[in-house]
Every structure is written in structure tokens, then in C-alpha cells.
């Protein structure tokens, strides 16, 4: 039970993180490079709201949107896809909850790149997009990898949205936090200890890697 939920947790968190990377990039680009104030305002809401809303509320939103009677769920149902209470639902819940952490880290690290570097790259004949990839992203790579790690760590610990939207199903959505909940509810002390140990080790690992990244980024500057 412990090993299975550990693997499941990692699998779900990794996929959620990969889904978040391009979306966070898009948000960071709009937030830092767009001249459109409305777009910036919208992005600001998008990257803040999941942070301030309780995960349970997010899970509930996902449930009513993706259930077969919901707006998106209805369309997917017609196509033969069901999302609620699947592994993909667990991934979506983790992705939504960890999204603000990743995108905010992206925005901050891209904002902190010296704008003069971009100007010089442009003057050297590099197009807007090329400059973004070769200068902006490259110079903020430690901040960006820190953001990815932060998002991943948050996805590892996701509980509230997952249990509402993806349930608590062994091998599908019972990640470590849900397995801990389950063990407390059934009084399974032996597994509880192991699961908490796993959780703590994962936490220490992500914090340590994050610290290494921060130190490396400082050394580079």
C-alpha cells in the first residue's frame, strides 16, 4: 500500500508538473511582456486565485465543471471520455493547486532578468522570440527550475482538491496524503508511520534541491 501510493504520488505529481510548465510559461510571458493591461490583470487573477482559494473549493469547481452534467465534462462525455474519479482527475487537481506556485515563481524570475540584456540581444539581431528563449529563459533558469520544483513539491502534498474531484481510490487517486488520511480514518498505525516517513523524506528532498538551486543561482550572479 505504501509503495503503491508512493509511486502513484510521484507519477501524478510529475504529470501535473509537466502540464503546468507550458501553461505557467505562457502566463509568465503575458504577465511580464504584454503591453495589454487587461491581459495582465486577468493573468494576475488566474495565478493568484488558486493560491487563496481552499483546495476543497478548487476540487468542487473541477467536479462541477468536469462531471458529465457539467460544461466541459458533458462535451467529453459525448466523446466517450470520463474524467471525474480517474487518475487524470487526480493529475488535474494537483496541477490546478500547484499551478500558482510554479507560475508565480516563473513570473518573478523572468521579471528579475535585466531588461538591458534583452535590449542588447535585440540590437545584436536576435528576434523577440529568440531573445526570450536564448536570454530571458537562460538567465532565469535557476528561478524557473526552482519554480518547477516548488510546484512539484506542492503537487506531492495535494489533498483537498484531489479527494473531492478524483476521490480516494487505491491505485487511481490514493496518493500519499490521501493514504495518510485513509490510515488515520481506519486506524492503520503501521502504514501511517511509513506514509508519514515517506512524506517527510520527499519534503526534505525537495527543499534541499531547491536550496542547492538557489545557491547555484546566487553563484552565477
Amino acid at each position, binding site marked *: 500500500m505504501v509503495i503503491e501510493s508512493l509511486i502513484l504520488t510521484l507519477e501524478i505529481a510529475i*504529470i501535473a508538473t*509537466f502540464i503546468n510548465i507550458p501553461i505557467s510559461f505562457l502566463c509568465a510571458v503575458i504577465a511580464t511582456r504584454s503591453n495589454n493591461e487587461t491581459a495582465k490583470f486577468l493573468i494576475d487573477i488566474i495565478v493568484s486565485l488558486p493560491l487563496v482559494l481552499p483546495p476543497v473549493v478548487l476540487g468542487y469547481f473541477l467536479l462541477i465543471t468536469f462531471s458529465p452534467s457539467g460544461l466541459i465534462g458533458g462535451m467529453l462525455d459525448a466523446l466517450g471520455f470520463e474524467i*471525474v474519479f*480517474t487518475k487524470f482527475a487526480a493529475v488535474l487537481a494537483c496541477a490546478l493547486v500547484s499551478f500558482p506556485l510554479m507560475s508565480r515563481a516563473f513570473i518573478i524570475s523572468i521579471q528579475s532578468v535585466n531588461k538591458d540584456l534583452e535590449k542588447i540581444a535585440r540590437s545584436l539581431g536576435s528576434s523577440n522570440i529568440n531573445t526570450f528563449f536564448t536570454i530571458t529563459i537562460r538567465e532565469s533558469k535557476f528561478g524557473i527550475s526552482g519554480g518547477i520544483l516548488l510546484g512539484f513539491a506542492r503537487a506531492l502534498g495535494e489533498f483537498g482538491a484531489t*479527494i473531492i474531484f478524483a*476521490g480516494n481510490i487505491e491505485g487511481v487517486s490514493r496518493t500519499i496524503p490521501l493514504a495518510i488520511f*485513509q490510515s488515520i480514518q*481506519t486506524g492503520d498505525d503501521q502504514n501511517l508511520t511509513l506514509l508519514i516517513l515517506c512524506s517527510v523524506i520527499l519534503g526534505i528532498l525537495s527543499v534541499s534541491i531547491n536550496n542547492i538551486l538557489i545557491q547555484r543561482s546566487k553563484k552565477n550572479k
Partner: protein
Amino acid sequence: MIKTRFTLIILTLAIVTVLLTLSSFFSKEDKKVFIFAAVSLTEPLEEIKDIFYQQNNISIILNFGGSQTLAAQISRGASPDIFIPAGMSPYKFIKEKDIKIYSDNVLISNKLIFVSNQSINNWENLNVEELLTSAKINRIAIADPELAPAGQYSFQVLDNMKLLTKIEDKIIKTKNVRDAVNYMRLGLAEGVFAYNTDFNDYQQNFNKKLISEELYNKVQYPLIILNNSKDINEFLYFLNGSIAKDIFIKYGFSNP
């Protein structure tokens, strides 16, 4: 050079994401009978699931949660085949929401007990009233009746024994019955109202007292059928059979 490496990494990530995402869509194909059940049923149902799979090669997907949460999820579009809540009120709740129900019956029942971590002389011969008013028991953990059926049954007992005002100061309300048990295990309370099945796993020795069944409504676990298929019928037949009943009894449940 830098550009190509970067593009390659992004591309690989994208492909992996798409593949993993698709694979999770296909995993739905394995699903045969999808069950929502109260957390307190975890152990017997998982045992039953394994035996049933060995005999019939039909897999059971179990989703455990608080009964009221599960009912709310069903009312918001979750569609399990079978729903087994602890108590009748979640059943009433989904009935009111016009969820289509194929059939229902009472699967099993549970008994209410009073448990303490204190060693009280002559425990065997004392009655519940004497225990509850004992000076050794200063705090009694009970699930909040607003949130959990166990709390409703417990308060019913206190009401019927006319003890509510007498021990009101001792009561600590918790989110659910399992939290109440944990309060006592952690020493935050000396006594707890719980189900007979809540004490299957603990190594520690606690003093238990069964509460007379005349003092509260029967604690029944309804079996609610929300869908219809050959596999579901197969499982229902097994669930009402003697193998399943024996497993439930092993974990402290009673026949209805």
C-alpha cells in the same frame, strides 16, 4: 547548439506528458464495478474485493470517503455503480436530489460502544451511566451530530438516558467518529462514543462497553444500487452471500 538542446528537452517533455495523459484515459477501461463507500468499511470491502476478483475476474474500484462528502459528490455528477454510506441520511440526501436509484437494501449494521483509556475498578459491572459520570472521565469525545451520523446516535443515547445536561461540560465534539477515537488515543479525552468496528486494529487495550440497542436507532449501512449491469449483479449476489457476511462480522459488523 543551446537552442536545439532546449527545443529537444521541451519536445521530450511534451511527448511524455501527452503519452502519460493518454494512458490515464485508457486506464478507465479496467473499471468494472465502481463503488463509493464509507471509510469505516475500508478493511472488509478491500478483503471482499480481492476474493471476488479471484473468483469472478471482475475488478472492483473502491472509493472511500466521508458518507456525506460522497453523497455530495454523487449529487454533483459523480456516478458510481454502488453507494454504501454509513447511516441512512446520505441516502435520503441523494434521494432528494433526484438521483436515479435502481434498488436498495440494508447491507449490514453496526453497534455503538463507549470506550475509555482509564482503568476503572469493576468496569465489567458498571453501567454506562455510572461510567459517564465517573470522576476519572472528565472529557468525552463525540462526533459532531451535525457532521457525522455517529454523533447523532451518540446524542440520542445521552438524550434517552437523560444525561445530556449532566455531562454536557465533559463533551468534546469532533469532525467525525474516527477523530473522536484519536482524541482519546492521544489522551485528549478519557472516553469516546464510537462504533464497535472502530477498534479492530489498535494494539492498546481499552475498556469497551456495548450500549444497549434500545437507546438508539439501528446503525444501518444501506446498499444503494445506482447502475445496472451483469457485473454489478454478480457483485451484489456475492456481497449478500455468506462469504462476504462472514468478513463483515470478522471486522465487528452485525447482520442487519
